[in-house]
């Protein structure tokens, strides 16, 4: 199958030109084959997926003049989310959502007995606070730089939904160790939900899976924390990144647009 022409690479990534005197069409030595093994595999996959154009579009996007460190907050938030996801997956391999003591015992095992369990659990616990801080800083940066205006309103709306989902992750995850602090904090949180008029009692019953805090409450929070909200967050992050790449990055508000100077008109003298 004929290869389609690849989109142009940025200059920094073009292969270096052959030195004068080398024959680019000569016999291929095993050293050259070995040096190019990696790119050969990538080429094999890319010939079938045709995805390298899309990856270049995502990674090598243009940034405006005046770009600064504030613009890294969004990527930092996503990095914190990936940290939570990876440490969360490995914590889930040891955690047991059992309200009659198994949850607390599995957390104790992770903290005390498992190799690097204390480290992974701490990464997850502190990573949650880090993610909340970064997401608020990112939201503040977007707000104060006016980056929510046309055509980026949808990006902003998706970002607000991501904020709410992140807070919900914090709320549901807090219950999972099922110690005194988790238990009473979740009771207070669910009762706060119950103070909303008309739907409050049913909303808190829905969260608790019943009128009292029971075993199904812990299971429900675990399923929401592990499956429902991470799925939604991943989908919305994908949409958020697509929109950002498609619409481009705005310049900071102190960068003024430069007008093209009109060519000077000379009066014709009669």
């Amino acid at each position, binding site marked *: 199958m004929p290869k389609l022409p690849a989109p142009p690479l940025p200059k920094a990534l073009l292969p270096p030109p052959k030195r004068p005197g080398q024959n680019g069409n000569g016999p291929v030595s095993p050293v050259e084959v070995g040096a190019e093994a990696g790119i050969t595999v990538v080429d094999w996959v890319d010939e079938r997926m045709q995805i390298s154009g899309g990856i270049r579009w995502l990674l090598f996007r243009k940034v405006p003049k005046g770009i600064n460190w504030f613009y890294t907050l969004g990527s930092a938030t996503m990095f914190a989310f990936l940290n939570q996801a990876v440490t969360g997956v490995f914590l889930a391999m040891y955690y047991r959502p059992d*309200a*009659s*003591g198994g949850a607390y015992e599995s957390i104790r095992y992770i903290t005390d007995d498992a190799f690097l369990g204390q480290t992974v659990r701490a990464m997850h616990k502190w990573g949650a606070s880090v993610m909340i801080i970064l997401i608020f800083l990112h939201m503040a940066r977007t707000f104060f730089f006016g980056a929510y205006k046309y055509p980026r309103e949808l990006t902003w709306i998706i970002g607000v939904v991501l904020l709410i989902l992140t807070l919900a992750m914090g709320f549901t995850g807090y219950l999972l160790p*099922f110690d005194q602090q988790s*238990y*009473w904090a979740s*009771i*207070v949180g*669910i*009762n*706060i939900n*119950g*103070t909303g*008029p*008309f739907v*409050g*009692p*049913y909303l*808190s*019953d*829905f969260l*608790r*899976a*019943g*009128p*009292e*805090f*029971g*075993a*199904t409450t812990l299971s*429900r929070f675990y399923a929401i924390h592990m499956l429902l909200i991470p799925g939604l967050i991943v989908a919305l992050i994908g949409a958020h990144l697509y929109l950002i790449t498609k619409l481009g990055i705005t310049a900071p508000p102190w960068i003024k647009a430069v007008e093209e100077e009109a060519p000077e008109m000379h009066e014709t003298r009669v």
Partner: protein
Amino acid sequence: MPGSFEGETVTRRRFMTGVTHGAGGVAAMAFTLPALAFAVGPLFSRVPFNWQTVGTTADFTDLTYVTKVITVVQGIGNAGNTIAFMRKRNPSIDTEPEDQYNHYIALSSRCMHLGCPVRYVAAAERFICPCHGGVYDFRGMVVSGPPVRPLDRFYTRVHQGLVQVGPRYSVNFELHRFSPRDPGQPLNGIGQYLYPKRFDTSILPKN
């Protein structure tokens, strides 16, 4: 529509598309609706609650409260237990009407602000909540702080000389009985309509 017969309202293509989408919708509902009902089901199934024996009639006095541990959720060990503050009814201070279920007063330990457990301080004859400073008096009425109604109570009865505790109920400031509500939901005046009763709370056991 171009190419249609006289009086034709829907083309064959549109009919086919519509029927296929409809069939796809039915198939999706086939796995979505049971799952949703599974998630929402607990709102509608009644939680069973039997009378629990907490002591004999000699264990309680009308001068102070005795704490007893009762089980409100079965099957999860300690996490399903809670504390009831119990005393004998004192007609000189308990002015609400007396019936077979309040010869012994059993107060719930959950603060009616947001649900933290209160403790009884005998020297001051007050219940104090550690979370946000709610204070209740000897009868469980609010004297200070953010709670919105008096402490919830449990039905009690005397059965063959044993004092037994039944389901929980909520009260407003006139100590009128309501089906149990969550903390933070006021029940005076319009409150009982703003925060309607739920379908899944325990009702009085028949025996």
